[in-house]
């Protein structure tokens, strides 16, 4: 069973449906017992960083997720805001503390107007995978995925980056460390390539 953590933010149904399409059993939940019983966890998220942390607190999920992911080492995937929340802190609407599972912070895309780069970074962009990983098995080194975000994770721990992308600046689009996997892009919105990654996630045994 894959628990898709429902903390009031995010396109939960899309993720559940995409996982079901590739043969996963899912439960969308913030129930502690259900999350404890699941063998894999997905932290989705669309929205603001501060609200995200606040809601995780509200549903008493911070300690629980820490136990399940950092202690019990369950396979984990953070998507979009669910990736950013793993960092130490974010500069979104003032400074906010994150889960601090990875040595990274979250920055905003900030371009001089002559660069003519729109923010949010919205649409399909190419991810370069810089090393192999079971979840990217069957994909090419470069694939297009769907992004929607104004902030990005900037890792200090150089072991983290698995995939990089370029939007005015190079940024980290995908990270992995032990049982933690995260993408800034949306696999559930990236058609066949995204579904392939979700299928690989179901089989992944870190």
């Amino acid at each position, binding site marked *: 069973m894959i628990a898709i953590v429902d903390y009031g933010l995010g396109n939960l149904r*899309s993720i559940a449906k995409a996982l079901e399409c590739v043969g996963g059993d899912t439960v969308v939940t913030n129930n502690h017992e259900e999350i404890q019983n699941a063998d894999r966890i997905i932290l989705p998220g669309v929205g*603001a960083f501060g609200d995200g942390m606040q809601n995780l607190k509200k549903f008493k999920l911070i300690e629980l997720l820490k136990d399940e992911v950092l202690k019990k080492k369950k396979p984990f995937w953070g998507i979009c805001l669910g990736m950013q929340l793993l960092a130490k802190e974010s500069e979104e609407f003032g400074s906010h503390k994150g889960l601090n599972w990875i040595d990274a912070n979250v920055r905003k895309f900030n371009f001089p107007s002559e660069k003519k780069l729109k*923010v949010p970074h919205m*649409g399909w962009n190419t991810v370069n995978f810089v090393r192999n990983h079971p979840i990217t098995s069957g994909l090419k080194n470069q694939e297009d995925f769907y992004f929607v975000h*104004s902030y990005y994770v900037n890792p200090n721990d150089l072991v983290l980056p698995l995939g990089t992308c370029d939007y005015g600046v190079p940024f980290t689009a995908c990270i992995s460390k032990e049982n933690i996997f995260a993408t800034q892009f949306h696999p559930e919105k990236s058609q066949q390539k995204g579904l392939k990654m979700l299928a690989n996630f179901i089989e992944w045994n870190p």
Partner: protein
Amino acid sequence: MLKKRIIPSLLLKDGRMVKSVQFGNYRDTGHPITAARIYDAQRADELVVLDISASKEGRKILFDIATQMAEECFMPLCIGGGIRSIEDIQSLLRDGADKIAINTAAIEVEGLIKEAAEKFGCSTIVVSIDYIKHDDGSYEVFTHGGTKATGKDPVIWAKEVANKGAGEIFLMSIDRDGTMKGLDLELTKSVVDAINIPVITAGGVGTLDDFRLGMEEAGASAVSAASIFHFTDQSPIKTRKYLVDRGVNVRA
């Protein structure tokens, strides 16, 4: 590099898919779920679904359709039509929409865009702007499905909603809608140059080259079209190939 997007749009009226000409003369064009399924298979970059049902029953169908589309299409779905409140937005997002298009309420409901952007993130909130080009060459924003003049200039209005936190503009020419006589490149360019958020331009696409012009000449982040896919033998696949062959920066 970020790719330019090809976005089929679907217009819904009481649960059926229709296509208008200049926001009138609706023709039935089939079942929306079937169409969405086909566009997904044809690797459209995203779908925009706009509901113009007047009745409550019609609106309810929109929620069911959003759910069904999200179950079958693994690409971004932008859904709009009659959105008035934070609750409307929340339930559509729950039902499967990734982005919400807001039109009339962006003007009528004070504070909605700002509150929605703060609550759901800028990138979730698309402001849809319908406009007319008057005979004297001036432009004006219309709401209520193109029936109510607002006195607002589309460039100024786009700037205003961008400042309020909108994450994207869906820019629709009412007088070109369904005519297939080409996009309004001039106004598109003015809006693109005036704001720092992505612009989807729509209304008038009649040839594959119109996509190229919208993306390259006017600088839009995406071009949306309906008639060309409903009434000609062109498809997102052919569009993509045409653009790739001409070096336009789209997903191959």
